[in-house]
């Protein structure tokens, strides 16, 4: 230690040669600029593809997307075809998926976060819920086909599709509700317990009201996933051409992405179907965009409260 101090301090020896620094400086700055643009390019890539897609969709649907298109029933003749059936089918689907996932999802989240003892059983369930979120949607379709369509005998009905879709998005609701419940500060629970409240009173009056924005955000994201999902419905056998509008839970139905799927396939037969598909995509994207925006607004509004 002493020797080093003696060496350096009196002579003020410098390890950094300013000439070398000068010489290498331009290369360093150039490299910095290059990587800057590379990263910008990779960011733009996805964005540009999205813009191209949107442009195509909008261009293709001009002249086809109008009030009649939204209110007409399905028809083999492109001029008279509309998507009111698919819109109502999508609403029916939400009527099942919303309440079912809310009750099951929030119930599961409350149990895991508030009631279950943390231990091996708890982490086993937790791991499986996380795994479930990663299961391909077509597998859920097979599950729905086996249980709801065949065993329960619901056929390719709204209730079979809705329950299948509920299973698919349930992990999303559970995980986001868990996060929301976990983010409720412990001191609020303590305040409630400290006054002699039971666990359920604390959950109902303190935890859930505070967790509600997070839970709602998760619910909306789950619903928007369910609206856009196609594969499980293909598996459970949604008809390609369905003209009657569904009136009850046990009716056959179709949804927007299914309509897009069949029109796109059939566009080799009838050219105009491509335009109908594009117009439907625009409707679906608009709905999803609005839902996700609402979720983001709710999240931002309630983010910092404590």
């Amino acid at each position, binding site marked *: 230690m002493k020797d080093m101090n003696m060496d350096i301090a009196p002579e003020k020896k410098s390890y950094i040669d300013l000439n070398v620094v000068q010489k290498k400086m331009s290369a360093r700055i150039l490299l910095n600029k290059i990587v800057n643009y590379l990263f910008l390019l990779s960011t733009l890539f996805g964005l540009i593809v999205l813009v191209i897609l949107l442009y195509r969709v909008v261009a293709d649907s001009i002249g086809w997307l109008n009030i009649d298109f939204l209110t007409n029933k399905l028809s083999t003749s492109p001029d008279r075809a509309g998507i009111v059936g698919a819109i109502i089918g999508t609403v029916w689907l939400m009527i099942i998926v919303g309440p079912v996932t809310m009750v099951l999802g929030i119930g599961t989240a409350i149990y895991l976060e508030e009631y279950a003892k943390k231990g091996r059983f708890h982490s086993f369930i937790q791991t499986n819920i996380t795994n479930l979120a990663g299961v391909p949607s077509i597998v859920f379709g097979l599950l729905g086909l086996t249980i709801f369509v065949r065993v329960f005998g619901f056929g390719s009905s709204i209730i079979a599709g809705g329950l299948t879709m509920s299973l698919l998005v349930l992990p999303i609701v559970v995980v986001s509700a868990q996060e929301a419940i976990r983010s409720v500060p412990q001191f609020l629970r303590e305040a409630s*317990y400290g006054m002699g409240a039971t666990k359920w009173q604390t959950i109902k009056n303190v935890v859930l009201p505070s967790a509600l924005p997070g839970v709602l955000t998760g619910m909306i994201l789950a619903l928007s996933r369910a609206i856009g999902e196609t594969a499980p419905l293909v598996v459970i056998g949604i008809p390609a051409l369905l003209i009657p509008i569904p009136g009850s839970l046990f009716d056959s139905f179709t949804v927007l992405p299914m309509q897009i799927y069949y029109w796109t396939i059939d566009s080799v037969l009838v050219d105009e179907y491509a335009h109908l598909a594009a117009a439907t995509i625009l409707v679906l994207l608009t709905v999803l965009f609005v839902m996700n925006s609402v979720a983001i607004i709710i999240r931002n509004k309630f983010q910092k409260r404590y």
Partner: protein
Amino acid sequence: MCALTITARKSTKANAPLASDTENTEKNIVMNTRALNLWYGENHALKNINLPMLENDVTAIIGPSGCGKSTYIKTLNRMVELVPNVRISGEILYRDRNIFDKTYLVEELRTRVGMVFQKPNPFPKSIFDNVAYGPKIHGIRDKKILKEIVEKSLRGAAIWEEVKDRLNENAYGLSGGQQQRLCIARCLAIEPDVILMDEPTSALDPKSTLKVEELIQELKEKYSIIIVTHNMQQAARISDKTAFFLNGEVIEYDNTDLIFSTPNDKRTEDYITGRFG
């Protein structure tokens, strides 16, 4: 009188402290801790605690960080059981009933033994709803009765005049000191017998601290108060009895004036004179 007290004190062992003042013998014991041990997993956090606490006293618990004083006060209303892997032996008698008894529900205990926390923790609700929370969960629905309880509790916590015109505003709009008095009002609303306070002024400015201290002096007329404090001047100012905790043990427990003037144990003296802690 003085000589008598000192001889009495000399016979008092640190682990089996007894009330020595003749005046105090007239008061009933409200919470009596007997041979209490507590473990967090393998960590022996409270070691053979024996503390009889008297009715309508302010009992201060002092000691350095990590000495177990917060753990101890949370044991008195069994809040400590929210921590996983807690193991407890011994007993705490609240008015001669063991709070660890299987038939003693925590919900029942906590309506008799209320708690005010270190950080003000009002609910993100209106001032009125904060105070009405306790009565509501215990089944009071009548709006008129709730109003009466809210006013009485807020008056009891010396905050009524400040908030009477804004009862429907969110409690988060209050200052820290007001929030803490609101939390005291919320605690009073369940009409407790004992009030536990876990460093209630540590998050407050000196002016708010003074207000809370004055409030404690008023509250002891009606309630028995057990207060954990980091602040020795505070303990000296407001308490009747003081227990000094160190490493999970009660080193000394006696009348506050004696603890601060002539402590029996060298470690107590070192702590209150600021030599460690």
